[in-house]
């Protein structure tokens, strides 16, 4: 009797212990901003939540916000690696070297770094072809602009941003070869006030379409106030400008996170370097609003062509800004060149900061 009781207690204890570690897989996320920033980090967090929901109780997700790019990132990533994370996603360009450093120390943990280019046996780099959306936006801008001039609020002169500016201009030129783009660099990812100032400056100088590669909705608000159209960035910004937003590039990381966590769980995870686009669903376009039907049809047509692979934004003939040839007719830019893109194409009315 006594014996069976102890067996019973032991089995109950075991069952309880089993309950405590119900999630047998832990996925961890390191964010550069706050998860409610309304843009970049929020998009990653939505992806995390989708993954958590998808796996039910089998995967536990953990995140840490507002990690500065630098030594702080080392510490945060290493703490995650020590605390039993099976896979760690680091979601900012500046986390690249810290992630690599920690990945070398923790061989059994899998690492995934967003928007960088360095990899290792246990470190994958993943990215999104945001520029595909920019190309569509450029076409819409050229159709919708009465002045033939758009304004671009840019953050830092890194390849990702330069790709966006070039793709926007190339798209616009397919509609209006003389289309002009004014670029203002604010040297920040996130400063609502400064972004608003830049928007006002651009509008005062005659642009009637606004697009941004910064993360707050302030430019959208200014555009709404001044009665011009604008494009959203990273998240759908329609709430900030119901009559203003034409479309937005929305980052949708969820499917990718689910795919990679699944691979890590069933042992098929391999280090790789992916650069997905519209067709993979890693970015989607917000509904095309506030535009005539023919412009909408054109945008949807272009989107379909990019998805099917019939159209690649960086296809020759394309000249560099100074008029020297870059791509021959029909030639497509290779990913290596695009990932290091540090020059403008012809038609950008700005000097690229070096």
């Amino acid at each position, binding site marked *: 009797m006594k014996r069976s009781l102890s067996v019973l207690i032991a089995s109950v204890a075991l069952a309880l212990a089993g309950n405590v570690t119900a999630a047998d897989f832990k996925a961890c996320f390191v964010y550069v*901003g*706050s998860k*409610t*920033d*309304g843009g970049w980090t929020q998009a990653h967090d939505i992806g995390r939540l989708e993954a958590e929901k998808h796996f039910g109780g089998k995967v536990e997700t953990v995140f840490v916000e507002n990690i500065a790019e630098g030594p702080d990132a080392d510490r945060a990533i290493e703490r995650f690696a020590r605390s039993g994370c099976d896979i760690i996603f680091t979601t900012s360009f500046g986390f690249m070297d810290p992630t690599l450093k920690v990945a070398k120390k923790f061989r059994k943990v899998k690492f995934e770094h967003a928007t960088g280019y360095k990899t290792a046996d246990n470190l994958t780099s993943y990215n999104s072809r945001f520029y595909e959306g920019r190309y569509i936006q450029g076409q819409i801008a050229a159709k919708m602009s009465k002045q033939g001039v758009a*304004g671009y609020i840019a953050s830092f*002169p890194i390849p990702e941003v330069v790709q966006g500016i070039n793709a926007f201009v190339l798209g616009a030129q397919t509609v209006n070869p003389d289309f002009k783009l*004014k*670029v*203002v*660099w*604010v*040297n*920040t990812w*996130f*400063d*609502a*006030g*400064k*972004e*608003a*100032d*830049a928007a*006002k*400056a*651009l509008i*005062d*100088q005659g*642009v009637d379409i606004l697009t941004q590669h910064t993360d*707050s*909705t*302030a430019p959208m*608000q200014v555009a709404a106030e001044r009665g011009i159209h604008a494009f959203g960035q990273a998240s759908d910004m329609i*709430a*900030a400008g119901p009559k203003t937003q034409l479309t937005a590039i929305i980052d949708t990381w969820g499917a990718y996170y689910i795919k990679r966590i699944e691979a890590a769980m069933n042992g098929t995870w391999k280090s790789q370097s992916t650069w997905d686009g519209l067709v993979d669903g890693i970015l989607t376009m917000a509904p095309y609003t506030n535009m005539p039907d023919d412009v909408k049809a054109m945008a949807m047509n272009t989107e379909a062509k990019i998805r099917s692979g019939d159209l690649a934004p960086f296809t020759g003939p394309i000249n560099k800004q100074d008029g020297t040839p870059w791509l021959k007719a029909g030639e497509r830019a290779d990913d290596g060149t695009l990932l290091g893109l540090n020059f403008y194409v012809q038609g950008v*009315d*700005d*000097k690229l*900061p*070096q």
Partner: protein
Amino acid sequence: MEIAENILLTIATASTPLLIAALGELVVERSGVLNLGVEGMMVMGAVCGFVLTATTGSPWLGLIGAVFAAALFSLLFGFLTLSIATNQVASGLSLTLLGLGLSGLIGEKFVGIAGQKLPSLYIPGLSDIPLIGRLVFGQDPIFYISLALVVGVMWFLFRTRAGLTLRAIGDNHESAHALGIGVIRARYLAVLFGGACAGLAGAHLSLVYTPQWVENMTSGRGWIALALVVFASWRPWRVLAGAYLFGGVTIGQLHAQALGVGIPSQLLSALPYLATIAVLVIISRNRRLTLLNTPASLGRPFVPNR
């Protein structure tokens, strides 16, 4: 011509929060207290102003609430540094960190909600005068308050007995105490005023400048205000000049970029800081006068010994 007016309006909007926060800090520092929590109080003002406006539907209530919330928040700093005489630098820094975190928590449910703008002044006829109409008669109420504050602070500090007392406390709190002046009480009032001003500056951000709430939306403006006070050598009119110079060059460089002048944008972005420091250092170059204006007890904790 309209573009000139637009540029001046943008400059006024960009300069106003810096001016208000700096004026508040100026009074605090004149009393001998260094409050590095401006950024934290400002962001608390921004979030409380926005949340109150969104829940009550009245930006005016939001404005008043922001001022009170930030003043209340500054009391925490007052208690730490004045009542229990902790280190002012450390307490101020923690106030900033606490403010940034707490505001994120308070505002979490309000991110992405379309805000309501504080209505601008409109006087039929006067506001429609070309070029100067909107500039003089058509701005937001906080702009007019900021100018009134400049005059008010100048008058208070240099034309009233209470202002003289405040400056005496800032120069030598032991002597002031020996004369029977309530040092702690006066400093509490100064800290409260500084908090209220920072709250007003924050409300300007979330109710006028960019009517929305996003975490960390002050983006370092509190620190710029702090620097302005020092570079303006604790003189209100120089704070006014510094704030508008900073705002002016900030907007000017954005226009220069949009025009496509061939100057590297990194240099242009640094220009507001460089220009403001250069000009304020030049106007403060008289060392004797600057020393005269520097509150001698600045940052030193005061413990009444008898």
